[in-house]
């Protein structure tokens, strides 16, 4: 175990990063690149690294490190860099509040309640899982209904099992990975039930976690009722109609003792909300500029707090940018402000960042609303790029060079993904 500890908590930092997962660690490194002195990463867990510690499967770092790592390996590499660069990491510390003067109220398990100040703040709190209440599954409320992430923590970090026979609701990546993981543990996984007509996880996970283990995937199906008084005894599953309501005549029961929920992540923006940064109702994360600055001066954000990523590599890349710009903010070397607003158009749910500058290259992240094959992504009339397919579960990333924007003179650029 490698973990940092601020030997002496100071009263003022140049950059304080809320969250020590992959986003927070990358942001701290980004700030350090700009020569900023006092950087502090705060994490509520006993070790920084975030949810990566429980992701013991491989597939991390293909873009960033050009090799396939496990979650802990990926976290370890970042943590070592952070420690090498003498960045303070304070764990067992919860950021309870941030105010407009960038004072942070910390709850720490060792040093009590502390208030510190920051010249710049990076929000990197990640995401939380949606729970049963969010989808209102009828029935009883026994033990054994849990999020896939909770099960992953139980199995991978603590060495216990969540149950004996499992049904999974939702085809999010964590659920798919847990379908395989639990199968390897000798647990029967009766199936994955997805209310949408398409899967919500990466294609590679559908293949490697379900197909390879003969675990059935039921699209346009849901869990219609949970049964059992003390522990889950069975669930009723059913196909859904066009209003996504279960069709009772076609329902059937599956005996099981566990229902895993993999029904999506929500950016963890409680602090952002307290702080008053503007949020995008589609991403549930802050509205950010091309420098990952929120609508609050000197407050930056990166990673799942901004929008849900499917690969940690992109979290790191985006948060590195947030950290660099937080550093530039502190040193007074900020780049010129953005001059173009991106406006999600045809089949585009959202774009991050929300604004760009015609003077610099930018990586744009977006998600589509519907799957499409043989399509194009269009930025107004200035740029069109062919894509072989798009899928809501897989984020589209695209780098835009300034030369394409030379002849663009408006202030809002529509982004569309259309069939060719």
């Amino acid at each position, binding site marked *: 175990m490698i973990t940092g500890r601020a030997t002496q908590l100071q009263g003022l930092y140049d950059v304080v990063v809320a969250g020590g997962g992959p986003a927070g660690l990358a942001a701290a490194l980004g700030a350090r690149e700009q020569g900023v002195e006092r950087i502090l990463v705060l994490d*509520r867990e006993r070790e920084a690294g975030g949810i990566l510690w429980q992701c013991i499967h491989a597939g991390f770092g293909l873009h960033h490190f050009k090799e396939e790592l496990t979650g802990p390996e990926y976290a370890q590499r970042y943590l070592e860099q952070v420690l090498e660069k003498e960045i303070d990491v304070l764990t*067992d510390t*919860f950021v*309870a509040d941030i105010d407009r003067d960038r004072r942070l*109220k910390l*709850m*720490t*398990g*060792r*040093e*009590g*309640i502390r*208030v510190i100040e920051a010249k710049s703040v990076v929000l990197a709190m990640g995401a*939380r*899982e949606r*729970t*049963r*209440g*969010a989808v*209102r599954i*009828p*029935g*009883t*409320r*026994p*033990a*054994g209904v*849990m*999020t896939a*992430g*909770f099960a992953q*923590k*139980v199995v991978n970090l*603590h*060495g*216990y*099992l*969540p*149950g*004996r026979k499992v049904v999974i609701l939702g085809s999010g990546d964590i659920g798919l990975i847990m379908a395989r993981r639990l199968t390897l*543990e000798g647990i029967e996984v009766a199936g994955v039930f997805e209310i949408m007509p398409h899967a919500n996880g990466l294609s590679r996970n559908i293949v490697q976690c379900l197909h390879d283990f003969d675990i059935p995937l039921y699209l346009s199906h849901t869990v*219609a*009722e949970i049964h059992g*008084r*003390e*522990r889950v005894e069975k669930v009723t599953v059913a196909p859904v109609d066009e209003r996504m*309501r*279960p069709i009772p005549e076609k329902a059937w029961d599956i005996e099981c003792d566990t229902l895993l929920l993999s029904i999506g992540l929500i950016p963890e923006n*409680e602090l952002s*909300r307290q702080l008053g940064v503007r949020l995008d109702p589609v991403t549930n994360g802050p509205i950010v500029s091309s420098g990952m600055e929120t609508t609050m001066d000197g407050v930056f954000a990166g990673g799942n707090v901004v929008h849900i990523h499917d690969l940690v590599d992109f979290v790191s890349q985006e948060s590195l940018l947030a950290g660099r710009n937080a550093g530039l903010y502190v040193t007074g070397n900020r780049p010129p402000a953005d001059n173009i607003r991106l406006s999600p158009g045809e089949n585009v749910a959202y774009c991050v960042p929300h604004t760009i500058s015609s003077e610099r290259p930018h990586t744009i992240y977006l998600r589509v609303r519907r799957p499409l094959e043989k399509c194009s992504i269009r930025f107004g009339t200035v740029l069109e790029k062919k894509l072989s397919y798009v899928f809501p579960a897989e984020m589209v990333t695209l780098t835009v060079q300034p030369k394409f924007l030379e002849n663009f003179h408006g202030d809002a650029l529509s982004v569309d993904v259309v069939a060719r």
Partner: protein
Amino acid sequence: MNYDVTIIGGGVIGCAIARELARYRLRVILLEKECEVGFGTSKSNSGIIHAGHHSATDTLKGRLEWAGNQKWDALCAALGFGFERIGELTVAFTPEERATLERLLISGRAKGVPGLEIWEPDRLRREEPNLSSDIVAALHAPTAGVVNPYEACFTLIESARANGVDVAVDYRVEALSRGGDGWTVTGTGPDVASRFVVNAAGIFADRVAAMAGVGTFRIHPRKGEEYLLDKRLRGFVKRVIFPLPTATSKGILVIPTFDGTLMVGPTAHETEDRSDITTTLPGSDEVFESVRRVVPGISERDCIAEFAGLRAAAEGEDFIIGPTAAKGFINVAGIQSPGLTAAPAIAEMVAGILENEGLKLTARDDFVAAVPPHVRFAALPLDEQVRLAGEDPRYGRIVCRCEHISERETVDAIQRGAHTLDGIKFRTRAGMGRCQGGFCSWRCMELLARERGVPITEITKRGGGSWVIRRRDDGDQP
């Protein structure tokens, strides 16, 4: 041991009676079938202390509602559970409905309920801007409050215990027999002998009465589904909002809970199954459609949790409180709404009935009315937080990030009797927030295992077979 009184049922009624009897030199035991008191009907209660004007004056309900309402301030001062008089509004959409408000106003005033007034639309818009603009008038009753009913149960019983009352949980009563000078209760624990038995068994009160040979009434459970909304909506409405009442129900309400969430519900549907606490799709639709009519900005997308409970309605729809043909057997049955409101008054009434039936009530001179105050760390001012965390760093270590519950508060809850995840949840709110325990369940399990000295695999959600995890090398048994 031979007791003076056995109380069957540890809901809010049983707990309030236990605490009331604890004032006297008596040997009292309370038997509860769940793993903790308050885990039956009371846990799923809407938590409203009704203003006092709802029930007709010629009923027991009507008499005890306003009497009970006035006793909650003193109880809260002693026990420290969550309670606040936030007021209520009953809304009218038509001139005919408005006439009903006028009638409620007159009957409420006749009972002595203070502060009742009818608000016209301009006042209503100012006070509650998010109510539907179709509302033509509302009856405001400032005496209404909200309480955490489970917390009330926990602290009532804590106080009763501190004053010598015995409590047996996981005790399901199976038979009652009378002989000699009293009763013997048989069940899933050692037999209990006492001179008097108080039947506060909620939806099973008719069965317990039948065991005593006085099965003269029937409980017909009425199910209510409730939906809890995200704290983001805090302040969206400030008072409890009632539609006009019907014959069997006070309607589907919007309830700003003591802790800052909004709760919407309950439905009211008769059920034959006394274990039916399922939520349903039609129930959810009914609640949200009804609520949207009154508060259009509320959406099911804000739902973070759902639950259902059973009201112990009796034929005649009134409370059944009093002695029976079986000597020493007292019924406290059919306690549906406004039973929570009336609970402290019911408890005093039951003490009086016991005295009439021959139980000598001698006040204890060492009765301690208060329990040690609970620390709600997140609600304290910063300097107080700094001081407390300086004394005990466990106040600084977060357990539940949604509700900002510290390790020290969690450990306190365990030391005060929580031995399940739900026990911690309902005492501290850890796990009650928007992530519903996704983050804190494991921490709570670790703390339970540590403080109670048991393996983590023995931790349950709610006692019995509600296990959470199993060992890797377990066979078929968890």
